[in-house]
């Protein structure tokens, strides 16, 4: 059943991506100032949003684990963090490449970039921590605590630097600006690509969670083998 869902998601995502890529390269109008490079936004922004949503989903799952003790929440949280990390890295790398052309520099200490980097650092630490602990309960407990602290820290970083440094382009989505900052066709494509990337992310999370469950099964079988 789960395999069917994963395959279904991947196929749907692939079809949507194919359609989106066709639209991005051949149908969408050009941007006045940036040339071709602006089209990177259709992967940059959805990857950023997917990553951020993922971290907060992981926060909720961590809280659920701490209150219920059910390891499934912990496995799901770890998988979500891992996939979100991948998309955050995509976000940072595509952003740097864009910035090299448009701003002339690979990096700047604007609040969004700094928050993105802090996210990557904190959650890489999360994954490193998980790899360093063998005992499942301790691992789950520690990771949950780190995830909670980490997510709140990211919000603090975001808000504090937002007050000070803004070089990154401002919000363009109509839900934040009320319309007018971006061509509606481009905004539509942003959402379409976001759905595609979200589907890929969910498929990857499902696969990863299955692997975590297998890992736990191996663990319990090993204990049985040692006990016997």
């Amino acid at each position, binding site marked *: 059943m789960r395999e069917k869902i994963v395959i279904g998601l991947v196929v749907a995502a692939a079809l949507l991506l194919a359609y989106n890529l066709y639209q991005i390269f051949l149908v969408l109008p050009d941007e006045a100032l940036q040339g071709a490079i602006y089209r990177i936004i259709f992967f940059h922004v959805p990857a950023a949003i997917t990553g951020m949503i993922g971290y907060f989903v992981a926060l909720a799952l961590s809280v659920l684990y701490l209150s219920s003790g059910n390891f499934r929440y912990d496995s799901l949280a770890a998988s979500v963090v891992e996939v979100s990390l991948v998309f955050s890295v995509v976000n940072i790398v595509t952003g740097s490449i864009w910035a090299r052309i448009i701003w002339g520099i690979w990096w700047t200490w604007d609040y969004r970039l700094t928050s993105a980097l802090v996210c990557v650092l904190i959650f890489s630490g999360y994954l490193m921590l998980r790899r360093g602990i063998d005992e499942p309960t301790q691992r789950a407990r520690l990771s949950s*605590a780190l995830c909670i602290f980490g997510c709140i820290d990211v919000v603090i970083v975001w808000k504090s630097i937002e007050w000070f440094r803004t070089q990154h382009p401002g919000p363009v989505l109509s839900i934040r600006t009320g319309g007018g900052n971006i061509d509606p066709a481009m905004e539509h494509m942003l959402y379409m690509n976001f759905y595609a990337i979200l589907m890929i992310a969910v498929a990857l999370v499902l696969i990863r969670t299955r692997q975590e469950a297998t890992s736990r099964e191996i663990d319990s079988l090993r204990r049985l083998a040692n006990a016997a």
Partner: protein
Amino acid sequence: MRSLRQALFVAGKDLAIEWRTKESLNAAAAFAVAILLLFSFAFDPFAESTRETAGGLLWLVFAFAGALVFNRGFARELPNECLDALLSSPLSAASLLLGKALGNFVLLLVLELISLFVFGIFYDVRWWLHPLNLAVVCALATWGISIVGAVFGALTVNLRLRELMLPVIIYPLLIPLLIAAIEITGTLLANRPITAYELLWGRVLVVFDVIFTALAMALAETILVN
């Protein structure tokens, strides 16, 4: 205020041990002086640009030397199963955590004072010009560092890779706090007036401290479960 009394009791115990042995304070102070020495080679101490970055240098030193202090915080309880004894005692988890954080806090403040003296000599910086403001900034930022150090010191105490994992985890978490402290300290050391800009960063410090202390107290039972 029973939990506060308990926390002070735990802090007092740690500080008494530290006063007798001076193990982490000596190590941390030596480390801090060594880093300051190296920085004075990396950055020309008398160049104008170095004075601008003096705040940053100081807080880097405090953060790195602080990690040595936190490592000892809970690790000191491991031999003879003292940690188990503490956890089984009537002390609440929140007061134990708070007490450890208070101990860290005092030790770090002492370390900062020592570093400031050395720093003033190496870099010819008159750090005593705004003592009250500097004290407030140091206290707020050091409390933030201490509470995070205590929480993650507790979480990582049983790990075999503790010394490695603790810095890896806490430094990214401390980024907003350190940025705020660096900005304000830089202004104070350069003898510039405090403006709304610095007050905003001060607000960040307070918000960080309040949120993380509240979180630590709320999660204390979970963090300190054996």
